[in-house]
C-alpha cells in the first residue's frame, strides 16, 4: 500500500505543478465533442491496460486494493478539504493564489478523482471478462459509480441552464445564461396567460405553447413543481414580474438541457440496485 501512497503523492504534486503552469481546470473546453473523445480515450486505455496486464506489473497492481485504498483516501482528503474551505461561486476566479477556493477546478482534486475512476475501471475490467453470478453486486457498485461519475463530470460541460423572459401574447426564441450571454434556441415559448392563484394554496402557473421551426408542438400549463419537457429541454416556472404581482404580464422560465443525464441515471440506478442487493445476498 506504500507504493499506492507514493503514486497519490506524486499525483498531487503533479496537480500542483499543472495548477501553477496552466491555471485552474477549464471545464468549458470539455464541451461536446471533446468529452466524447475523452470518454473514448479513457475506455480504450482501460481496455488496453487490461490486455497488457500479464506483461506490465503496474497494470496488474492497478486493479488491486493496494492501489485502490490510497486512492480512496486521497479523494476523501481532497473532499474534506473542499468541505472546510469556503468556495467562490461557480465561474468566479479563486480568491487566493493556490486555487483551493475553486476546488472543482483545482488540479490535485480533479486528478485524485480521475485516478480513482481509472482504478475502478481497471477492477471492473478484471471482473467483466469472466462474468459470474456472484460478481453481480460487485459490478453494480463499481460500474455504477464509474458510469455516474465519469458521465456526470464529462457531461457537466454540455449542461445548459438558461432563463427566458416571455411576455403574454408573445413568442420568445432567446434565453440568457448566468454570464448574461444570449442564446438562440431551437424551441420557442409562446405565453398565453400567466396567473397566480391563492386557493386552495399559493401557486404560479403559465399557459404556454411550445414552438419549433416546424410549428407548434403542444400546449400545456407549467407550474412550480410541474416542469414541461420538450425536445430535450426541461422548462421550469422560475419567476414573474414581482412588482406587478397578480397582474404580471410576463413569466420567467428556466430551461435546462442535460444530454448526458440518461447515462448518469443508468449509473445511479446500478448503484441503487447494488446497495439494495445487500438485502438479498449473504455477503457483498
Amino acid at each position, binding site marked *: 500500500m506504500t507504493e499506492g501512497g507514493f503514486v497519490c503523492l506524486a499525483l498531487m504534486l503533479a496537480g500542483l505543478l499543472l495548477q501553477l503552469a496552466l491555471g485552474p481546470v477549464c471545464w468549458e473546453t470539455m464541451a461536446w465533442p471533446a468529452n466524447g473523445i475523452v470518454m473514448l480515450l479513457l475506455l480504450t486505455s482501460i481496455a488496453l491496460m487490461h490486455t497488457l496486464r500479464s506483461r506490465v506489473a503496474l497494470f496488474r497492481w492497478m486493479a488491486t486494493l493496494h492501489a485502490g485504498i490510497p486512492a480512496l483516501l486521497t479523494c*476523501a482528503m481532497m473532499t474534506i478539504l473542499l468541505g472546510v474551505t*469556503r468556495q467562490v461561486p461557480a465561474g468566479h476566479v479563486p480568491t487566493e493564489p493556490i486555487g483551493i477556493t475553486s*476546488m472543482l477546478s483545482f488540479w490535485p482534486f480533479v486528478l485524485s478523482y480521475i485516478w480513482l475512476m481509472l482504478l475502478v475501471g481497471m477492477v471492473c475490467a478484471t471482473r467483466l471478462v469472466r462474468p459470474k453470478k456472484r460478481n453481480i453486486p460487485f459490478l453494480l457498485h463499481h460500474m455504477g459509480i464509474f458510469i455516474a461519475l465519469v458521465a456526470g463530470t464529462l457531461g457537466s460541460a454540455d449542461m445548459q441552464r438558461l432563463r427566458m423572459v416571455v411576455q403574454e401574447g408573445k413568442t420568445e426564441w432567446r434565453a440568457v445564461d448566468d454570464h448574461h450571454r444570449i442564446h438562440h434556441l431551437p424551441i420557442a415559448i409562446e405565453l398565453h396567460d400567466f396567473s397566480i392563484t391563492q386557493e386552495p394554496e399559493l401557486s404560479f402557473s403559465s399557459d404556454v405553447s411550445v414552438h419549433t421551426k416546424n410549428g407548434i408542438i403542444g400546449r400545456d400549463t407549467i407550474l412550480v413543481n410541474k416542469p414541461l419537457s420538450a425536445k430535450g429541454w426541461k422548462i421550469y416556472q422560475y419567476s414573474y414580474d414581482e412588482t406587478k404581482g397578480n397582474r404580471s404580464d410576463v413569466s420567467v422560465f428556466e430551461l435546462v438541457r442535460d444530454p448526458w443525464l440518461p447515462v448518469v441515471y443508468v449509473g*445511479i440506478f446500478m448503484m441503487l440496485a447494488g446497495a439494495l442487493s445487500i438485502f438479498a445476498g449473504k455477503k457483498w
Partner: protein
Amino acid sequence: MVTWNELWLFALPAILCWAVASLLSLRGERQKTVCLFAIIGLLIFGSYIASMWISLKHPPMRTMGETRLWYSLFLPLVGLITYSRWRYRWILLFSTILSTVFIAINILKPEIHSKTLMPALQSPWFAPHVIIYMFAYATTGVAMLLSLWQLYRKQEQMAAIDNLTRVGLSFITIGMLFGALWAKEAWGTYWSWDPKETWAAATWLNYLIYVHLRQSRPAAITPALLWQVICFLCLQMCWWGINYLPSAQGTSIHVYG
C-alpha cells in the same frame, strides 16, 4: 372525516403493538410473532394516514405535521425490515421510540400541523430520504459504539461491526442517491457540491475505505476501529456539524432557517 383530533385513537394502539413487538424481540421470541405485532401496528397507523389522505383529498405531505406522520409510519417499517433481515434485537425498540417521539410531537404541538413546508420540501422524496439516513445513523452509530467498546475493553466485536457498517453504508448510499434524484427534480441538478453534499461524499468515501481496508488487511484491527471513529465524525459533520462550520455559512441550501 378524519382529522388530527383522531390521531391518538390510531396512534396509541399502533404504539402498543410496536412496543409489544420490541419487547418480544428483546426477549428473543419467535420472529413470526414479533413481525405479526409490528405489522398490525403498521396497518393501524397506515389506515390513519390513508383516512387523512381521503379527508384532505391530497397526500398528507405539505406541512411539517403531515411529514411527521410518514416518519412515524416508515421508521417502524424500516426497523421491521432490518430486524427480519439481520435479527438485530434492539432495532425495533429504537424505531418504536423514534416513531413515538414524532407522534408525541404531533399530538402535543398541534400548532405545527399547519406550518407549510417550503415548496422544494413538498416532495415524495423527502420522507424516504430522511428516514433512510436516520437508519444509517442508527446502524453506523452502534458500529462506532461497538468499536469504542472493543478499543477500550479489548472484546472481539469485529463481525458485528463489519455487518452493521455494511448495512449502514448501504443505507447511506441509498439515502444519498435518493437525495440526488430529488435534487434533480427540485433544482435541476443532481449534484452541486453544496456543503451538505460534499460532507455526504466525504462520509461515503470514508466508509468505503473502512470496508475495503477490512477486506485488504483483516488483521489490522486497531486502524479499522479508529477509522470507524473518523467515519462517524464525518457523518456528524454532514448531519448537523455543517450548521456551525464557517465555510458552509450562507452557502448551503440544506440549512433551513
